[in-house]
């Protein structure tokens, strides 16, 4: 236990350290908006996707709680695969579209949508339906773009367990807000791919290497990339042959959306859709241990 004196001393020491090492990149200090919040979660069901998105976010207090007027926002759906909407390999385009509209309504000044895909990026953007859904919004503030090869930068992972350094996509880190829009899918190595794994879409490097220690690696990555809101698309989920699927037999329609400011909390609930308990999924446990959210669903307030 710290006593008050120690606490003050340590605070001053760290302040000095930060002051002296003026070169410490500001990006590494996560914007502390929701970090101190209680563990909250909103789950809604329904078939009308735009309405469902609005209801789910309204339960959390509305998009205004996450995006303030004049801010820049990155919306990160899963656009990883060259698959059609119904194959449940990518985030549903209507989820993306509605979230972007909500950001606009909340006063965002610039909204960027991108993903580092696994298949050819151009095909993924088209086949997923996300490119056309975003372009339909037809606002100058909204831009769906391919990754800019110039904008990756290798950063120190200060508290990394599996990784010491990794290459990150700066626009995702530099934006004021990052909204994570994963789709809930089966994945053979991490069992499931949810919110934490979705942020692998804004890192560079040879991502295949991460699969050897995937749980800790993903937790490491998530300590650098802070997402302000995680909205998991479980309108339809992929229960086998993930993460890219390709067969309708492997798709289950669930008409569900899960939202939480805490990435691990959202993931923990999503795991139950597949019949798992959160603590059975290594990645979720690792995320909890790094302070990415409460995963004991009994301690989470469902709004």
């Amino acid at each position: 236990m710290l006593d008050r004196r120690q606490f003050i001393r340590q605070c001053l020491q760290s302040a000095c350290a930060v002051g002296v090492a003026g070169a410490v990149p500001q990006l590494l200090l996560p914007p502390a908006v929701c970090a101190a919040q209680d563990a909250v979660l909103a789950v809604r069901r329904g078939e009308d996707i735009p309405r469902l998105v609005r209801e789910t976010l309204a339960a959390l207090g509305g998009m205004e709680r996450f995006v303030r007027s004049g801010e820049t926002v990155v919306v990160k759906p899963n656009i990883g695969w060259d698959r059609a909407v119904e194959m449940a390999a990518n985030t549903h385009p209507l989820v993306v579209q509605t979230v972007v509209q909500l950001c606009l309504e909340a006063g965002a000044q610039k909204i960027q949508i991108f993903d580092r895909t696994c298949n050819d990026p151009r095909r993924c953007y088209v086949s997923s339906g996300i490119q056309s859904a975003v372009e339909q919004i037809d606002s100058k503030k909204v831009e769906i773009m391919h990754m800019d090869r110039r904008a990756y930068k290798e950063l120190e992972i200060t508290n990394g367990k599996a990784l010491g350094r990794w290459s990150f996509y700066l626009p995702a880190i530099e934006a004021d807000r990052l909204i994570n829009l994963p789709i809930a899918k089966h994945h053979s190595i991490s069992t499931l791919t949810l919110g934490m794994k979705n942020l692998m879409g804004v890192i560079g490097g040879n991502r295949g290497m991460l699969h050897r220690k995937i749980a800790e690696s993903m937790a490491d990555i998530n300590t650098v990339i802070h997402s302000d809101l995680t909205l998991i698309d479980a309108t339809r989920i992929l229960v086998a042959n993930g993460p890219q699927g390709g067969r309708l037999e492997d798709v289950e329609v669930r008409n569900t959306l899960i939202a939480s400011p805490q990435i691990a909390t959202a993931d923990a609930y999503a795991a139950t859709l597949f019949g798992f308990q959160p603590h059975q999924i290594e990645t979720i446990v690792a995320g909890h241990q790094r302070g990415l959210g409460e995963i004991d669903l009994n301690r989470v307030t469902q709004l």
Partner: protein
Amino acid sequence: MRVNRKWRIIVQSATLFGFLWLFLQTEYRGTDELAYPVSLLFRLDPLALLAAVFAPGASNLLLLWPALVLLGLTFVFGRFFCSWLCPLGAMFDFFGAPLRRLSTPFIGWPKAKYYLLAGLTLASLCGLQLFGLFDPLSIFLRSLTLAINPVWNLLANSAFNWFYQADLPLVSPTADFVYPFFRDRLLAFQQPVFLLSIFTAVVLLILILLERLQSRFWCRNLCPLGALLGICSRHSLLQRSPQTDCSDCQLCASHCRMGATADASVQAAECVRCLDCLDFCPNQRITFSFSKKDIRRFDLSRRTLLAASLGGAIMAPLAAAAPLTSSYRSDLIRPPGAVAEDEFLRRCIRCGECMKVCIGGALHPDLLRGGAFSLWSPVLVARLGYCELDCTLCGQVCPTGAIALLTVGEKRKTKIGLAVIDKDRCLPFARGEECLVCEEHCPTGKKAIVFDRRKVLVGSEPKELLQPRVLTELCIGCGICETRCPVSGASAIIIITEGESRASLRLL
């Protein structure tokens, strides 16, 4: 500038830029089907037509009818293609100008191209198609694809990167402002890299440097397409008069880009109807008219022609005398839809269109995988790029039917090879570490790579591991597993030719 010359240069440049524009469109642009007939250059190509006609299997005139139109036009206007339309000729005119020395005593071997054409034709008839190596349009496009375009992308991207990083006032914002236009219109989506790019560039460079010996060295002496069009041109309606230099003025001898007036017997075949002489003739003696001239006997050496033809005919069995590649190696992966190897080599004119359009950068020019005469034909090098499951672009651009046009449904079922695991290097087998990248990326709906959960001893410690296994009946050989395998250097899972759909011998 004189009127005729001006018009020809306008048409020549417009054609060159038109083909360059088509080249830039030879890329996925948001729709499964390409919007433009990007391989028009080769559908116009009589040599491609010959290759397709001589190949076994039905020759697809739906694809190659424009070549007949070109031949027809040549019978009317003569060998106009070479000076008005040919993009390689345009390159020679453009780059050759500063290299040229006007008064060159060099005569060259203007008849060699006819012997070459005879040899190539006979070889092709007998089963060895080599038109592609010498086809000027193939030389142009594959140089563009394999060398010029990658270099252009590298230079442009380095410049933009530099401005982006240097963050200079005024200059960098300007560069960043124009960058999206370059990125979307003029640059490739991903930096193209190709095997054989240096070799291909050197060939082109040599041909350009030969301009120093005489103007249009390639066209005068070697071009088999020029020879073919020249033969038609002899009988064309549009002919020049007089056929040789006038005794009092030798200007044509030094000014004609083709040296066509040197020999009356071949003038009609050598003249490319550029019409420059109409402008430079000081005495206004030259006319081009649609009147039949007396055609003199083509003064080719009968003996050499026979020797060239025989040589060509013998090349075919010589090539066939080598053991079939498929009998001793398994890395000859052809694009999806490629016809059986024998027919494939007889159809493929080495134009490089498929390599340009390949969305995954998977197709590369071959050197020796397919035998001594497979040079520049496309092979899939899966470690460098994979075949995208729902992409059918290579079949769409192939002008000769060497790669058949597949529907997406057919494509998904076309096996181009089979993945096999190298257990000495694959992490779960070789080091007892988990790794499942190949399974994650496997695109067949029901995955062709599955896991076996095994208890293994890592050292003396028992460990439960997932180990990948390939289901041979589901694997289509797309190669994404080989591309994405995280092991450094060569992949721990590789594509071999076994079981490819086009082979007669399927899976064991």
